[in-house]
């Protein structure tokens, strides 16, 4: 977990959220999310009908991986806001890195706990952003 005292605007935290994304993980995500669009899990459909190179990851799988980076960084149950845009597709074999950049630190006042705003970007091994957004999180009060 992250205390307000550890953070300053411009602080960057980078973490690999998946190394060599597998088709199996995409299938796992299809199962839990209920999104069985064959673009994500059906190689025959994805290549022969949709004309894609292979199956593509769900955008929400990528966002979920970014969510893991956020909860690992800020602690459990701390997010107050999390959102963003799906900027490019993610594919089997991709290694995805989440980059969190602190954009504001609010010290907290009265009953409002301290909090931070963060830019959230997920990039592939070529440095292409596949997801870009923002989040806000409550911080533990400084010890």
């Amino acid at each position, binding site marked *: 977990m992250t205390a307000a005292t550890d953070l300053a605007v411009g602080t960057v935290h980078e973490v690999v959220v998946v190394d060599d994304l597998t088709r199996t993980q995409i299938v796992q995500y299809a199962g839990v999310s209920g999104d069985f669009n064959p673009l994500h899990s059906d190689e025959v459909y994805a290549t022969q009908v949709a004309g894609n190179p292979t199956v593509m990851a769900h*955008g929400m799988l990528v966002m979920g991986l970014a969510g893991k980076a956020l*909860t690992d960084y800020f602690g459990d*149950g701390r997010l107050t806001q*999390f959102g963003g*845009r799906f900027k490019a597709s993610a594919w089997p074999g991709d290694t995805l890195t989440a980059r969190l950049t602190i954009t504001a630190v609010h010290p907290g006042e009265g009953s409002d706990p301290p909090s931070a705003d963060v830019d959230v970007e997920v990039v592939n091994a070529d440095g292409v952003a596949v997801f870009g957004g923002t989040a806000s999180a409550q911080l533990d009060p400084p010890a």
Partner: protein
Amino acid sequence: MSESEPYLPVEEGAIMLFARALGDENPVYRDREYARNSEFGAVIAPPTFVQSATHFNPDSGLRPRPGEPWRGSGRTPTGTPSSSEGGALRLHAEQHFTYHRVLRAGDELTWTTRPGRTWTKQRRNGDTMTFQDQITEYRDRSGELVITARSVVVELPSSGGSR
């Protein structure tokens, strides 16, 4: 008998599987004892968990239905040959969540979705892309708002890229 309004039971097993699909081994998502002793007193849900409400959406087109053709492959590369021709292509462009409180195993949410703002953009090739906000409110048994979700869906006139 009428059917219930759309709901989402927030179950420990579903949370464990959801976190597992994200490669997230955090015990607060899968270990009942650990979670009981945490500040939350129960297993909690990861930030994008309500996406699994699709399973409880009676109208979702994202899963096969018994007795109906499905666009994925079987004997042939697609079960609905016409699906790849013409028609608009709808993509999930953005997703935003506002968290009003922590979502715990044992919560039971009901949800309603309403259309929001609609706007258009011209592509370089002259095609018009139509964007629409869809706002979903997830409320607990007492009617308190737990999560507000905003999806942006973009509609393209014909095929070309997909997500």
